[in-house]
């Protein structure tokens, strides 16, 4: 299966990643970002946390403490692509709620969930700095907006086609 091969190819050796980082505490966030990025399911596994703790000579609890603080890190599997939809004041004012409802409807999931095919995770976040294009969202590092509920289907279909 083509899909499966792509996933395998992306699974870089954990130790290879870890070794690139100096053994200093302040490397924790960069290292966690790198480990999470290498995981096609977009999360940090218990082995990732252990490897980070060992390499930086930190207690595992310190790593866990940091990971659970930041909303971009996850301890559970997520989709290959993460949709972050803004619900802060400007977007709220200009229609974030109907936009979120349309996303939930089209994807068939609620905020925080992943589509059954593992392609998208939907997250609601605070201001993305796209307020001039509100209501706005990001998929991974890419920005989209302003979006009306009726734009959602086309956006998702196109994104699936481009990234398949």
């Amino acid at each position, binding site marked *: 299966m083509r899909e499966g091969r792509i996933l395998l190819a992306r699974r870089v050796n954990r130790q290879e990643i870890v070794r690139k980082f100096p053994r200093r*505490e302040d490397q924790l*966030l960069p290292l966690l970002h790198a480990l999470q990025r290498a995981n096609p399911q977009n999360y940090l596994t218990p082995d990732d946390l252990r490897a980070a703790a060992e390499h930086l000579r*930190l207690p595992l609890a310190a790593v866990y403490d940091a990971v659970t*603080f*930041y909303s971009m890190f996850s301890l559970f599997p997520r989709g290959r692509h993460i949709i972050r939809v803004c619900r*802060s004041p*400007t977007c709220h004012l200009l229609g974030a709620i109907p936009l979120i409802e349309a996303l939930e409807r089209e994807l068939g999931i609620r905020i925080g969930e992943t589509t059954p095919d593992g392609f998208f995770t939907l997250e609601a976040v605070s201001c993305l*700095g796209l*307020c001039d294009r509100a209501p706005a969202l990001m998929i991974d590092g890419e920005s989209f907006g302003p979006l009306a509920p009726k734009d959602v289907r086309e956006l998702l279909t196109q994104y699936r086609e481009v990234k398949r």
Partner: protein
Amino acid sequence: MKAFAEKKVLLSNVGAIDPERIEDYLDRGGYEGLRAALKRSPAEVVGEIKESRLRGRGGAGFPTGLKWELVLKSRAKTRYVVCNADEGEPGTFKDRVLMEGDPHRLIEGMTICGYAVGAKRGFIYVRGEYALSIRRLERAISQARQRGLLGRKILGSDFSFDLEVRAGAGAYVCGEETALLESLEGKRGWPRIRPPFPVDYGFRGKPTVVNNVETLANVPEIMCRGAAWYRTLGTGDSPGTKLYPLSGALNRPRLVEAEMGVPLRTLIYDFGGGLPGGRELKGVLVGGAAGAFLAPEELDVPMDFKSLWEIGAGLGSGAVLVFDETACVIDVLWSVLSFFAHEACGQCTPCRVGTVILLSLLEKVQNGSGDPAVLEKMLKVTHLMKVASLCPLGQSVRLPVETALEKFRREFESHLKEGPCPQCKATTEVHA
């Protein structure tokens, strides 16, 4: 009265150059500010910035020259420069536009700062969501290194300095400077108790300048053209230009640059193109979620630090969020409070619990189930948060709540009597 037009100083290159090519920046006089700085002593550079009366653009308006002087005069050998690029204040997108559109301006400003305060290393802490900013900055840094504008013995001088981009990971509170330093050190972003301030005890306990992106972007221009020129712009108390992110019910929501002191009315009706469909303006939230609500009678206020403090508001990030007659103030405040409830870091009780209590009190107002004492209760909670919260996040929640209640009291009272309006209904149903 002075007529205000847009004035591009910080934005002069944005959109006009290819941000991925250092040649474009150099062609337009880029890195001349750094050359000028290296010809002078660090104390002279700090003196020039002091004379310019540049105020920090991160929200608090602290005098930049004074901050630098405190680090320059410290006795510690190791010092750092940290750029706060964690931009997360709702309604704010100015630093992103600068980093994406003209990354070298920031790098040049930071390098001048490093020279002035005696730092050898600097960090740009960019919020993790700003993927394009991160890419552009990393590329610009490596181009600057190749040309001897960063690294060892910059431009043949004895000054060595290097920069690193660090990505945040999704936490608004990390924009608070001490939380940012904790995060940079690899920990959760819990604000530190201040004092000591970062100028004494910063990154890894060393004296550190923490400045906002826009603040540092002013520096090359001041070095090139001098403090006297800089002070011809803006007001006596707040010189220079300011970036104003305009959003909400506007025909042309966008980032504009104008001299400090431009009236709010000009920003909205001239630069922002006014309200769509001829709608009536109902109010403005100025300075972000941690800002103040202003009523239509207040539109002539000059948008600088001092003028806004004088009317009990604040310039904050310069963000201007406009809402019209079709919006419900209680609903806007609901969105502000749910932002704070979500972003409170949880370290201290007044803020962690206070934000949630405020939200539940406001929901009572929204659905008409509260008694009139609810409004007084809200003010009690914000007062308590003001005096007892550990960091400015919790302390500043009072501003939007108090100004909303003061200026739109009637709307709160009518919700209390009659229950939710159509906007409130949508909000409460989804989030029930």
